[in-house]
């Protein structure tokens, strides 16, 4: 692959990150995607839109989120300093709201009256229902029947916020199938409906737009580190499901070649067992959900079922920009198992009084591994993408506790 000078120059006008990305969708969606791209690229540079978004991020989401030095965790691990970017402190409890606030504003500017979304862990569904309620838009959330079972609290939260939650019973009944069903809805209702995709996947312009709306995470963190520590971190880490919180953290640092970047994918019961969701670490290039990226599939090209303890990471594809960063050698992607994530979950609870989402616990586990590789004055910056209240039932069940 050719040497890349400027990682911020991607995607190109067709939505391609090198060989990845693009718009692999049914003909019916080509026009709405072109309309969305046109609207988004216009708004993206519009000072009034930027000011509107900034106001919402400050007053509604609660930005900026702090960078927190996890001192007791660091001491416990005995390596480099572990800093946490506290996206768990955002309104609704995860980074997902950065994106939904942005897309909802785009929807309103485009005159759309109905919002649809897919969700895995329910965090993106909650974040979509939240912004829809605030803007007075109708909201329908597609969620796999399996995920509805393991994320009951979030399902109820969405209903309280006025959203309709539609169970998806096709395929593996998880996030990928919810995405298929949301696409089918969109194809059928293109005139009045805006589809808020929850991660940096899907056809162009979604990987670009969702990344842009989450890139505030890395921009803030970069400035916070320079301000508070007078330097950049040695290494960044974040969990990667579809990859939005990770892209959000990584993007501002892509051209800082001295900063190492490590994405933590869900290795489930271990990559060797086949029960995992590590598309980059164990998959191959293919086409899924409107873009070319790394996917988990069999030799017939059928997308395989994934496994992770965290619903939000249980996805057989990944955003195309991550595929590009992997092949360009700019970022590494490694697997973190269910057990490692759970151990990190408990450790963070007890050393710092922070209850992380199971998704984010994968990043914490990876941060702990990385901290051991660096000297004590090193800095590992970890994206704490969300809080774990939604996962309490899953954890209790797994540990044989009745709540």
């Amino acid at each position, binding site marked *: 692959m050719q040497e890349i000078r400027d990682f911020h120059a991607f995607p190109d006008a067709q939505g391609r990150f090198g060989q990845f990305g693009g718009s692999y*969708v049914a003909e019916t969606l080509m026009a709405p995607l072109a309309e969305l791209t046109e609207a988004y690229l216009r708004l993206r540079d519009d000072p009034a839109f930027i000011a509107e978004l900034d106001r919402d991020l400050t007053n509604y989401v609660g930005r900026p989120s702090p960078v927190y030095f996890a001192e007791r965790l660091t001491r416990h691990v005995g390596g480099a300093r572990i800093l946490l970017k506290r996206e768990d402190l955002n309104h609704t409890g995860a980074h997902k709201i950065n994106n939904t606030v942005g897309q909802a504003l785009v929807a309103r500017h485009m005159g759309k009256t109905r919002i649809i979304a897919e969700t895995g862990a329910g965090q993106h569904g909650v974040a979509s229902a939240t912004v829809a309620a605030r803007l007075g838009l109708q909201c329908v959330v597609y969620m796999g029947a399996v995920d509805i079972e393991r994320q009951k609290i979030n399902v109820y939260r969405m209903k309280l916020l006025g959203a309709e939650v539609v169970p998806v019973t*096709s395929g593996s009944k998880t996030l990928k199938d919810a995405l298929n069903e949301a696409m089918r809805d969109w194809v*059928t209702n293109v005139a009045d409906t805006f589809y808020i995709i929850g991660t940096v996947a899907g056809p162009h312009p979604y990987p670009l737009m969702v990344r842009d709306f989450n890139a505030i995470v890395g921009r803030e963190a970069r400035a916070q580190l320079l301000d508070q520590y007078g330097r950049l971190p040695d290494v960044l880490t974040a969990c990667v499901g579809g990859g939005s919180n990770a892209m959000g953290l990584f993007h501002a640092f892509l051209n800082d070649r001295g900063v190492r970047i490590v994405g933590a994918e869900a290795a489930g019961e271990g990559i060797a067992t086949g029960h995992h969701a590590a598309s980059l670490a164990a998959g191959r290039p293919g086409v899924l959900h409107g873009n070319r990226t790394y996917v988990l599939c069999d030799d017939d090209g*059928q997308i395989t079922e994934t496994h992770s303890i965290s619903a939000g990471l249980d996805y057989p594809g990944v955003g195309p920009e991550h595929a590009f960063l992997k092949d360009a050698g700019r970022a590494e992607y490694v697997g973190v198992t269910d057990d490692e994530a759970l151990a990190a979950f408990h450790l963070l609870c007890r050393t710092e009084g922070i209850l992380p989402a199971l998704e984010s616990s994968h990043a914490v586990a990876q941060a702990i591994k990385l901290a051991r590789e660096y000297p004590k004055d090193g800095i590992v910056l970890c994206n704490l993408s969300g809080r774990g209240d939604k996962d309490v039932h899953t954890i209790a069940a797994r540990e044989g506790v009745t709540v």
Partner: protein
Amino acid sequence: MNRIDRRFAALKSAGRTGLIPFVTAGDPAPEHAVALMHALVESGADLIELGVPFSDPMADGPVIQHASERAIAKGVGLADVLGWVAEFRRRDVDTPVVLMGYLNPIEIHGYVRFGEEAVQAGVDGVLLVDCPLEESAVLAPLRDAGLRQILLAAPTTAPERLANLCKAAEGFLYYVSFAGITGAARLSTTDIAARVADIRSHANAPVAVGFGVRDAGSAKAIAGFADAVVIGSALVERLEGVASATEVADRVLGFLAPIRSALDAG
């Protein structure tokens, strides 16, 4: 000349509307897949659209989704589908066969390898739902091997793209009658008649209309302004769960014969 072009030329000179049934390969039963193809032809099909099962059929409604799931559960993959086409060709060298599906199975199989094997098997074209014209560069090896890429146009297609599609169309252009997924019942022939007529006057290829055609009545209505009609979900639904080869043939005949006569009734 490709079989597709030859077939449409023959239809045109006979003044007939083409009948294009869609079935999911391997459903209702992999062991009757080839018999099903012959039954389609014997019941009046002019061209066969054979669906390659895919785990994530984003553009399909429940009927075809479930047919795909059933076929995949029985282990049906691209190699089986190519094998069935090759077997079909031993008795039928004239009826064009178009494989319809999604890109990933072909991407994973390898474009060059797929192109060679498909032509070898007797496939004439591909219709890849998630590969619009803008992304079609990857299909160059298929075209080089001699396969036609069947393009789709939709009610939402903007004028400028439509002009490009009409220019690039080969084999036939598939007009999707409404914005939606397969199997929905939203057909409004009055809305689409003028649009299809316009496309026909500009396209370099014949125009087939699909989505929402369910029976003789709706097929007949479309036939007034299209070169061919495509019928999928209603047929797939009719075949669900059928276990014997004779019953497959009976159901196909029972379903297609009235449609064929309606189309031919002038």
